[in-house]
């Protein structure tokens, strides 16, 4: 081992030590919401095939519990996990410690108070009924203030970087750090503070929802893949010179693609048309990113056996490609005619949020947490259970929602079929959806147990390795361009 490699390792340990507690707090909160949101989502799904389930209490009526579940998952699990991973990765890639981490605890506290109040607000009847903006208005300021602290930390860490190069993951993290607050603030102003009239409201809403998925969750997932693949495999990103092109192209095209959610809606027809064109343009960056990532993985598929991180990242990459293909399909008028308003439309967002983003965060956690806590995962069986449940759940839900949505769309298009008959035909698919969501919850529970073991400060036992192969040697292998 050369002396510079040893220096690098010491530096990384310092960075990890500075990020340890903020990351654990954010990730712990994220897992709490993942479980709670998952249970709410399961309840909402059960209500679709067993309508009497929990229907007597207004707090748990389907129209409230479904958006509450979605918000808990997106703002509770998704955002907290992205904060945890984003802050740590930004510090590592900028080769600088995360300074004054105490402020991040304050931010985490406020963010989670905001989400809690928001979910209670939705369940208590203060929903705004705008997709992913259902939380009552008073929560907005709490969330924005908390986010300001977190975003500023990420950007400051980037601006005091000690590295010459800026790596691809940093572009995506940096971009996402700015895009989310802008999207959120603009949507809040245009829908609530100075509301626009008529169908402009759904236009703003579609722009926000598409932006949140495409310019926040997808960039974070891509940042994870660009970082973890070369780290674990010990080789640089293939065709890296194309990556900047993909970044800019993806950002600009995604920003314009929101209108594609409004095909056939009573809005000026150029709005969905522009969205459709943007979605077609997205083919280029998706192909480049796939070339980068799968090109790096090519020839090293054997490494999948050794690393649970790599397996989750592979699921995430497949999820990204599938979600992109699906997004494109939903832009075709013929397919949209059948698919919009059915389970197929829900599948697009689920693929981005769960199959692409959430699995990337799981992969990142399996890499990051042992390094932060300097411990091993305690139970390899739980790791396998989590991975297995994720694979089974993702396959079940993707297949089930796709087939069920197809059936639903086909029946809806046939005006001869009564609505009661459609509901009857859908019962099977709703039941399958509940099963899939239940399987995922089992995996999340296994993950939570392992997380508690690794994060709990009173547990001083260093336990058996759950990584199938010990990775630190790999970490010091040839660092890809721009790596700290």
């Amino acid at each position: 081992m050369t002396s510079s490699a040893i220096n690098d390792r010491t530096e990384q340990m310092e960075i990890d030590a500075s990020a340890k507690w903020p990351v654990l707090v954010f990730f712990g909160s994220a897992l709490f919401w993942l479980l709670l949101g998952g249970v709410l989502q399961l309840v909402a799904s059960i209500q679709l095939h067993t309508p009497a389930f929990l229907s007597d209490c207004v707090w748990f009526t389907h129209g409230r519990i479904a958006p509450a579940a979605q918000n808990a998952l997106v703002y509770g699990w998704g955002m907290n996990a992205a904060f945890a991973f984003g802050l740590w990765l930004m510090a590592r890639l900028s080769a600088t410690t995360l300074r004054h981490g105490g402020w991040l605890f304050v931010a985490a506290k406020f963010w989670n108070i905001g989400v809690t109040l928001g979910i209670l607000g939705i369940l208590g009847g203060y929903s705004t009924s705008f997709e992913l903006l259902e939380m009552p208005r008073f929560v907005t300021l709490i969330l924005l203030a908390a986010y300001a602290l977190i975003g500023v930390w990420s950007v400051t860490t980037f601006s005091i970087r000690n590295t010459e190069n800026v790596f691809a993951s940093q572009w995506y993290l940096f971009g996402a750090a700015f895009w989310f607050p802008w999207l959120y603030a603009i949507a809040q102003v245009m829908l609530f503070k100075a509301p626009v009239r008529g169908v402009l409201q759904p236009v703003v809403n579609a722009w926000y929802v598409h932006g949140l998925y495409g310019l926040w969750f997808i960039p974070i997932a891509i940042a994870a893949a660009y970082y973890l693949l070369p780290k674990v495999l010990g080789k640089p990103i293939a065709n890296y010179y194309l990556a900047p092109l993909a970044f800019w192209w993806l950002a600009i095209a995604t920003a314009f693609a929101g209108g594609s959610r409004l095909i056939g809606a009573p809005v000026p027809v150029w709005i969905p048309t522009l969205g459709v064109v943007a979605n077609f343009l997205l083919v280029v960056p998706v192909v480049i990113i796939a070339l980068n990532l799968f090109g790096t993985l090519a020839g090293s598929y054997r490494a999948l056996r050794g690393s649970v991180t790599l397996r989750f990242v592979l699921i995430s990459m497949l999820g990204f490609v599938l979600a992109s293909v699906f997004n494109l399909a939903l832009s075709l008028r013929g397919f949209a005619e059948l698919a919009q308003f059915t389970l197929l439309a829900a599948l697009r967002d689920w693929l981005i949020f769960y199959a692409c983003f959430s699995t990337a965060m799981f992969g990142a956690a399996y890499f990051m947490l042992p390094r932060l806590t300097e411990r091993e995962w305690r139970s390899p069986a739980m790791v396998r259970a989590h991975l297995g449940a994720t694979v089974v759940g993702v396959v079940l839900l993707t297949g089930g929602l796709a087939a069920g949505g197809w059936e639903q769309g086909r029946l809806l298009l046939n005006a001869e079929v009564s609505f009661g008959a459609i509901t009857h035909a859908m019962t099977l698919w709703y039941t399958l959806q509940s099963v899939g969501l239940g399987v995922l919850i089992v995996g999340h529970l296994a993950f939570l147990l392992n997380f508690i073991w690794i994060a709990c400060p009173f547990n001083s036992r260093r336990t058996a390795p759950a990584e199938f192969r010990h990775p630190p040697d790999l970490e010091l292998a040839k660092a890809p361009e721009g790596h700290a």
Partner: protein
Amino acid sequence: MKNGLALFLGVFLALALSWTGLLLTAHEQIGGLAQYKDPVDETLYPLPMSGLADEGRLVYQDLGCVTCHTQQVRREGFGSDIARKWGVRGGYARDYIRDKTVFLGTSRTGPDLRNVGARLGDTARPDEYEEWFYKLLYAPQSVAPGTNMPAHAFLFDVHPTAGRQPSDKAIKLPARFAPPAGIEVVPTARARALVAYLQGLKDTYDYPIEKSRNANAEPPKEGGH
């Protein structure tokens, strides 16, 4: 890419462009859309909703009805909305300017509701239709067998009639769904507002200017010059 400032400017421009190009442009185009005055009956359309119906809009919003119901009728030739009698024509942007909150919706777990006020269910008269909605909300299966809509019993006051004048607003349910004798089911103010809102949902007026603007171009006649 090494320059932080260039990265920032690019990131900023990407979103700023879409905001001006998409949202501001759309606002410029239809933000000032006004009611249309019919030249014959000199009435402004779309008609505003009643005060009670506007309260009902808030009930619709807080119960999250938009989770399962859209409020948009796709035009003839795109989907089966017209054939399903969810409306007599596709929706126009102008229809929505009276709505303080627009619930276009993204899911059709339940049927579209944009013209539910004009449909009359399977009843003959508007007052029967009101009752039909109450039954639907209290015990969905009583009027829509096979539906997976949850019951909204919390919108009703269920109490014994003993020692009090029976309410003239109590709903009459089929025996299977009715409470035991001596107990009546009375819609609360929230239920009445919600039903007023639902009954107010109808886009039956067809705007001559929208009709001409949105009509499909006639296919060219053969041999004509």
